[in-house]
C-alpha cells in the first residue's frame, strides 16, 4: 500500500512538472514549484517507510520549512526586482488620492 501511495505521489509530481514547464504566467510556475515541494515532503515521509529508515522524516520537516521560505523569497524577489510594477502601483494610488 505504501508502494501504491508513492507511485501516486510520483505521478502527481510529474503532472506538476508539466504545469511548471507549460505555465504561461510566472505565478503559475511559482504555484507549481510550491505544490511540487508539498508533494516532495509527502513523498519523503512515504519513502522513509518504504526503505525502512525513519531518518528521512527529519529531512521532510526541514524541506517543509525551506519550501515555504523559498516560495516567499521568490515572490519577494520578483516583486521588487520588477521596478515598473511597483512604480505603476504607486502612481495608481497617487492618482486615486489626488
Amino acid at each position: 500500500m505504501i508502494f501504491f501511495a508513492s507511485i501516486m505521489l510520483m505521478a502527481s509530481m510529474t503532472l506538476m512538472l508539466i504545469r511548471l514547464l507549460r505555465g504561461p504566467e510566472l505565478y503559475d510556475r511559482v504555484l507549481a514549484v510550491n505544490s511540487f515541494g508539498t508533494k516532495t515532503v509527502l513523498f519523503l515521509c512515504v519513502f522513509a517507510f518504504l526503505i525502512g529508515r525513519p531518518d528521512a522524516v527529519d529531512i521532510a520537516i526541514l524541506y517543509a520549512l525551506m519550501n515555504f521560505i523559498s516560495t516567499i523569497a521568490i515572490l519577494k524577489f520578483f516583486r521588487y526586482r520588477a521596478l515598473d510594477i511597483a512604480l505603476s502601483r504607486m502612481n495608481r494610488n497617487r492618482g486615486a488620492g489626488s
Partner: protein
Amino acid sequence: MSELLHYLEIARHILASLSLLGGGFFVVAGAIGVLRMPDFYTRVHAAGVTDTLGAVLVLFGLILLSGFTLLSAKLALVGVFLLLTSPTATHAVTNAAHIAGLKPRLGTYRTAPPPEEDNTKGPIA
C-alpha cells in the same frame, strides 16, 4: 483478549491503507486539476486540494502505520508545518499576482464552450 488485539491490529492496518490510498487519490486529483483549470486563479484552488486533505490523509495513514512512537510525533509535526505554511504561501502567490495586475477570468467556464460568452466584465462582481 489476544483475539481482540489481533483484530484491532488488522483494523489499524486496513484503516492506514485506506487513508494512504485516499490521500494519494486527493493528491492526484489536485494535480489533474492544476493541469485542467483554465487560468491561474482557478489553479490555486486545485492546488489547495492537495495541500489540505491529500497531505493530511497521507500523513494520517503513516501515523497509523507507525503506532505510538516518536516517529508519529514527527509526522504530526510535518502535518502541522504544512497546514500552517500552505495557506500563507497560497495567499502570498495570489496576492502577488493580484498586485502585479493579473486579471482573473470571470463568468462561466466550460471545458467545451458551446456559445461564446462575454468574459470581459469588471474584475470584481
